[in-house]
């Protein structure tokens, strides 16, 4: 964890990335400890991918301090790259080659012998359940299979740090759960995972600690539980009203919840005891169409911190 005395695997201070006049990452600070699963959460365009690309040494740092595995990406990119695995947002598989050849040639890029690359390729194909597709072309594979192949490929050099940029975007639930399962196993083996996502359940499943990014800055840091405690309540009461029937006078909610959010057809009340809040409102004569008490989630934290408006 962050409080560990071990030196950070990734250390960033004032890390900044600019493309011309546009600032993609604005002076962010974070540390990732060995063995930790660390997430970057944020809406599209928040700067997550730019950050991960700098860690992966494929995008030069504009300003600030960044060390990866104790090395400087500007001076030692090849040494860093030889010890990390990367799952990029867009697949970069070789369409001309077979599934197995994709792994073997990637192993060759890391200077493995052909025999060793072949041995690891067979092992990894079993690990991601693609053993039966070893000889098929990449093109006809489903999105989930391609993603699994990309993950297998990122592991060919047995990395101690794995960078995953939106690993499960665009996948069906079955494929996502299989991937989470595989990533969890890697984590148990001691591989440090750094991932970006905008799926809250993915962050809750996989991350020990995460940062929420918005508009190029880090707006919150902590474990999923800490973030929920800090930025939300234990429970949320969701009241739905028929169109135009929502209470016009918001004072009816006074004193019931620590925070009230009024949306066009719903009212969200953030309270530690949702049922109690519901019964108070019932006593005050409020009759919503539906009433639902649920536990607070990371999604509530996310929406509170980054806002509900669409980012285009």
């Amino acid at each position: 964890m962050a409080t560990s005395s071990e030196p950070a695997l990734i250390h960033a201070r004032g890390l900044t990335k600019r493309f011309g006049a546009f600032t993609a990452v604005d002076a962010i600070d974070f540390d990732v400890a060995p063995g930790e699963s660390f997430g970057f959460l944020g809406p599209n365009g928040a700067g997550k991918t730019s950050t991960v690309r700098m860690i992966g040494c494929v995008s030069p740092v504009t300003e600030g301090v960044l060390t990866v595995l104790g090395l400087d990406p500007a001076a030692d990119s090849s040494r860093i790259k030889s010890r990390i695995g990367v799952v990029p947002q867009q697949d970069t598989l070789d369409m001309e080659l077979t599934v197995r050849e994709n792994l073997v040639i990637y192993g060759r890029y890391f200077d493995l012998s052909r025999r060793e690359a072949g041995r690891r390729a067979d092992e990894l194909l079993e690990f991601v359940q693609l053993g039966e597709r070893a000889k098929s072309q990449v093109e006809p594979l489903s999105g989930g299979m391609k993603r699994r192949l990309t993950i297998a490929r990122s592991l060919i050099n047995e990395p101690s740090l794995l960078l995953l940029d939106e690993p499960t975007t665009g996948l069906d639930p079955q494929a996502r759960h299989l991937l989470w399962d595989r990533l969890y196993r890697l984590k148990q083996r001691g591989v440090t995972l750094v991932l970006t996502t905008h799926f809250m359940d993915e962050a809750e499943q996989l991350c020990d600690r995460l940062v929420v990014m918005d508009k190029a800055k880090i707006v919150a840091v902590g474990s999923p539980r800490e973030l929920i405690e800090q930025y939300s309540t234990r429970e949320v009461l969701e009241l739905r009203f028929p169109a135009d029937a929502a209470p016009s006078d918001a004072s009816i909610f006074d004193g019931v919840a620590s925070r009230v959010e009024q949306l066009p057809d719903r009212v969200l009340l953030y309270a530690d005891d949702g049922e109690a809040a519901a019964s108070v409102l019932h006593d005050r004569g409020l009759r919503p169409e539906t009433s639902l008490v649920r536990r607070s989630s990371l999604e509530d934290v996310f929406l509170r911190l980054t806002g509900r408006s669409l980012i285009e």
Partner: protein
Amino acid sequence: MTAALRVLEFNAMGYRRVWRGTLFSTFLSPVLFLAAMGVGLGTFVDQGGNGALGPFSYAAFLAPGLLAGQAMQTAGFESTYPIMGAIIWDRTYFGMLATPITVPGIVFGQLGWMAIRMAMVSTAFFIVMVAFGLVASPLGILSIGVGVMTGLAFAAPIMAFAATRKNDQAFSMIFRFGLTPMFLFSGTFFPIERLPARIQLLAEILPLHHGVALARHLCLGDAADRSDQVVHVVVLSAYIVAGTIAALITFRRTLVR
């Protein structure tokens, strides 16, 4: 440079799947060209000849020029669509750059692979020329090397250009307005001395003429003036070096952001 060798290996791995198909066309093309233009048209030219070609048949005059021209065509293909594919369509280069492979590794590996392709095509062409009895000098074998140099003189600058493109629209322009006219007016089919002075000058600035002239002198064994040969080698080398430097710059600009 290990990185370049790995990039070369990647290309070879993909080629392994298609080599049988290309082998046939690699030999077929010189046979067709030499049969039609060398023997067919050549018989016609030689009969009406005024001795402009000296003691040589038109086919022997034409063949080394076609060898260089073919290397240029191969370069034109290899340095456009596959490069765009690896940058934009499949993003293969980005996959490579996540590993210890570097941008110079990609550029030199890709050029190395193209040199091998050009050597294959030129060797096939040379074998067919020997079979047709069109090589007068043992030095003719060096024309395979000339084919490689000529090819690289095109491949390096064209791949530098290809890396700056977002789509493949410009590529057909390169063929239509660049390579095809050059193929016709660089001394391949007739000596450039027959061209108007200005166009002759243009032909002398562009690389193909130098590959054609060099290959021709080597195959015919009529290299009277050594300094001419040096000029040909220097011009081709200049295109290769300048193109490679340009490719290192444009590849870095496109691949590292």
